[in-house]
């Protein structure tokens, strides 16, 4: 990039073992992508378990899915899409040196992630109230299938692991928000915003698959 050439513009976050800021940026980004590969395979084990059980007990998935609220699952999908948009906006704001907009967009992202977790909390506690627990703790009578607990074991494991990722993402967003308020990010240096954004978009993609796989079975 042309505006990276002068030494005066080099960020104080530039580390000496890189040739230039661009190399540092690209190395960080590739590292994040390699981490995302491990994340996809981490979730992949659970998705594989889902495929195995759905092919063994297709009728169970149709029956048990009715206990999940399509409206709230859909609202959460829209909430996460919105938060992905605001992360992308935060990165764009950094690239254009609009420092105030970085903080605003990160703040909205953090709030939307909070909305997602609050909705998840109400979904889970409603099920606990009915006796829908994973595995051997399952005590709900409303689904006429001997393996009903298996569907909800998968549901809690997959949405739970996803939820843990959202909570970690909220911590990262809070950290980015704090740093953006301290003025750390600008068009020369916004690597943490960029790679946290990649993580956040992957969390969004995982939910894009979880939503139809659990809520939209007929």
């Amino acid at each position: 990039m042309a505006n990276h050439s002068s030494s005066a513009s080099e960020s104080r976050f530039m580390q000496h073992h890189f040739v230039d800021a661009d190399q540092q940026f690209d190395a960080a980004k590739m590292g994040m992508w390699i981490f995302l590969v491990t994340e996809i395979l981490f979730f992949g084990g659970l998705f594989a378990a889902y495929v195995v059980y759905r092919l063994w007990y297709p009728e169970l998935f149709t029956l048990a899915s009715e206990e999940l609220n399509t409206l709230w699952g859909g609202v959460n999908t829209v909430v996460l899409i919105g938060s992905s948009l605001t992360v992308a906006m935060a990165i764009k704001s950094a690239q254009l040196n609009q420092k105030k907009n970085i903080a605003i967009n990160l703040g909205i992202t953090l709030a939307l992630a909070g909305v997602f977790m609050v909705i998840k909390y109400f979904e889970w506690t409603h099920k606990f109230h009915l006796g829908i627990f994973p595995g051997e703790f399952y005590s709900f009578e409303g689904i006429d299938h001997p393996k009903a607990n298996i569907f909800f074991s998968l549901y809690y494991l997959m949405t739970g692991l996803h939820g843990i990722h959202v909570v970690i993402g909220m911590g990262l967003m809070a950290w980015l928000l704090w740093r953006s308020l301290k003025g750390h990010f600008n068009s020369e240096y916004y690597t943490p915003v960029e790679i946290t954004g990649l993580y956040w978009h992957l969390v969004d993609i995982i939910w894009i698959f979880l939503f139809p796989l659990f809520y939209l079975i007929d």
Partner: protein
Amino acid sequence: MSGHHISTDKTLLGVAGALLFLTILTVGVHYIHIPSPWNIIVAMGIAIFKATLVAMFFMNLYWDEQFNSLLLISSIAFFALLVAFTLLDTLFRPEIMPGF
């Protein structure tokens, strides 16, 4: 090739709008009750299209170093291998093991 592509508001809002539309579409299709297996094929097709939009335009792979796309594609390939080899076992058992 550069990792510093700056997306326009138009692109970002367009992609978000498309994702919103596809979410409404997949819920709408769910209530039509397409016969199996087409319901799962349509639902997964829409999800894969949505994920591709996010990967290309929010995660910037469309403008990025192609190596990062290769990483993503390789993870999907290994996931497919995991599922395929697992199903070679679980789909061809004479009976499902008790307790499973």
